């Protein structure tokens, strides 16, 4: 079944989606995976068909630890998606995975988007989001066999560059 419904949005993941089907198949089993180049061995954060470093089109899925650090973020105060209105303000985070940080270039990393959520998959409080905070993947059940990778704060010291904006009071 290639279609799933989440917050009124139809997510279409057909069998011939060679980029994202394997990613969501693994997520449905509670595993976070990235693509690994079979030839040069480098991982890539975006599950594309070719290796950005060696052009090889031979790849395999590789499970990663699911831990990382918030690299950048945005807090949505106003959303244009009607079915997300009751969630505002909510944080969307760009998480840099622990694997392959700063390789092969010092600015490179495996970076994945998700919401910052609490133990119940409700949106985390705005004052708790910040660059440098440590997070771990959490798989939010959507439909039978389909889970959405989300991110939760973990009790580890901030890592690298840290910063957060001043959240409005109230």
């Amino acid at each position, binding site marked *: 079944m290639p279609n799933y419904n989440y917050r009124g949005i139809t*997510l279409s993941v057909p069998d011939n989606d060679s980029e*994202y089907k394997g990613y969501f198949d693994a997520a449905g089993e509670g595993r976070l995976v990235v693509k690994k180049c079979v030839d040069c061995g480098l991982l890539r954060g975006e599950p594309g068909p070719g290796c950005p470093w060696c052009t090889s089109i031979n790849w395999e899925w590789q499970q990663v630890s699911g831990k990382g650090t918030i690299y950048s*973020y*945005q807090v949505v105060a106003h959303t*244009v998606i009607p*079915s997300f209105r009751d969630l505002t303000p909510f944080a969307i985070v760009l998480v840099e995975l622990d694997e392959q940080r700063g390789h092969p270039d010092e600015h490179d990393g495996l970076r994945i*988007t998700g919401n910052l959520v609490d133990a119940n998959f409700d949106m985390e409080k705005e004052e708790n989001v910040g*660059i440098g905070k440590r997070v771990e993947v959490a798989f939010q059940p959507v439909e039978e066999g389909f889970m*959405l990778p989300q991110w939760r704060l973990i009790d580890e010291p901030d890592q690298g560059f840290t910063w957060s*904006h001043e959240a409005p009071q109230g």
Partner: protein
Amino acid sequence: MAGNPRDKYCIVGVGETEYSRASGRTTRAMGAEAIRNAMNDAGLSPDQVDGMLSYHGGDSTPSTSIQYDLGIRPNFYMDCSGGGSSTEALVGLAIGAIEAGMCDVVAIFRSMNGYSNIRIGGTGARASAPIGGMDLMKRPYGLISAVQQFSYTFTRHMAEYGVKSEDLAAIKVAHSNHASNNPKALMKHRVTVDDVMNSRWIIRPVAHLLDCCLETDNATCVIVTSADRARDLKHKPIYIKGVQGRGTKPGGDFHYQHGPITRVAGHYVGPRVFDLAGVKHEDVDITGCYDAFTYTVMLQFEDYGWCKKGEGKDYVTSGIINLGGKRPNNLSGGHLCEGYTHGMNMVIENVRQLRGTVDDYCPGAAEGDHTYDYSEGGCRQVQDAKISMNMGWGTPAVGSSLIMGNVLS
């Protein structure tokens, strides 16, 4: 770079429709009017226009329809998928088509009911449309609109360089002052830093409502031909000194996987366009820097080298970009105040500025008789502007640039 066409091609006509939020008509009707206005501006008849170029996001009308409405028969046309930064790039493609002998005179147009029909952010019904492919990694998390798509770049920039919301607001203030002297502008009133700060938040920490451009119904057109052909047309030709783009950052759509994330396409486009045009930063009198949001302006000023990386906040608050300043930016009010046109209006404005006949409130504006009194409701013509530079923004990863001048190098 082989075959530098510096000064061999010109923009000879510009035109637009009204900027509104309820055009009450089709993109076909608006496109026809904008092209007609540009032809009249140039002094060209339909049989003298034999090229058409447009860009769209599935929200416009093809050249092959509008040609009928104006009696144009193109020897060359192309309707490209595009968006911000396409304007400058299509000026370059028009030069290429003419250089290749495919046509002689090209009308470039953009037509969009960007407020009343198809809005850029994908609001309403489009927000709930089925999604697949790369959107699967963003949309389920509520990441959809343009201000969001670019904001990872600027949150990180604010963090690394200590930018405040007040710094961004200075850009809106400058552009609103310019718009107050533009009868065409959708938002003509001058705003203050406090007005921007007190408008509601859209995305923290990067944008209040007044940091965002104005979704607009409009069509726009610029006409490109050779300097030889330009000689017997109505206006002083505005020479194309150099054009580049759409150029990209490494990674393209997935640029945030590489770095530095705060770097934008101008870092790559800038040196090439300055080299082609044979000008230096200090030679440029006016700029047109794509203001989808106030932060796109600051990012581009830095990466095109108007200031050092991280000093954009000082550049935009220094007065340099204001009318009466050293190098004013977006003199029509740009996307933030005149109207959102996907980049076209900033090129149109610079053409009019270089002609010296900007359509402000001066009674003799059309004849180039300006007061240079920049108070509200007055003049917006920059005195003796000779060189302009446009910096088009598509995404943090995509940009184009165009340098024009009113004298030969």
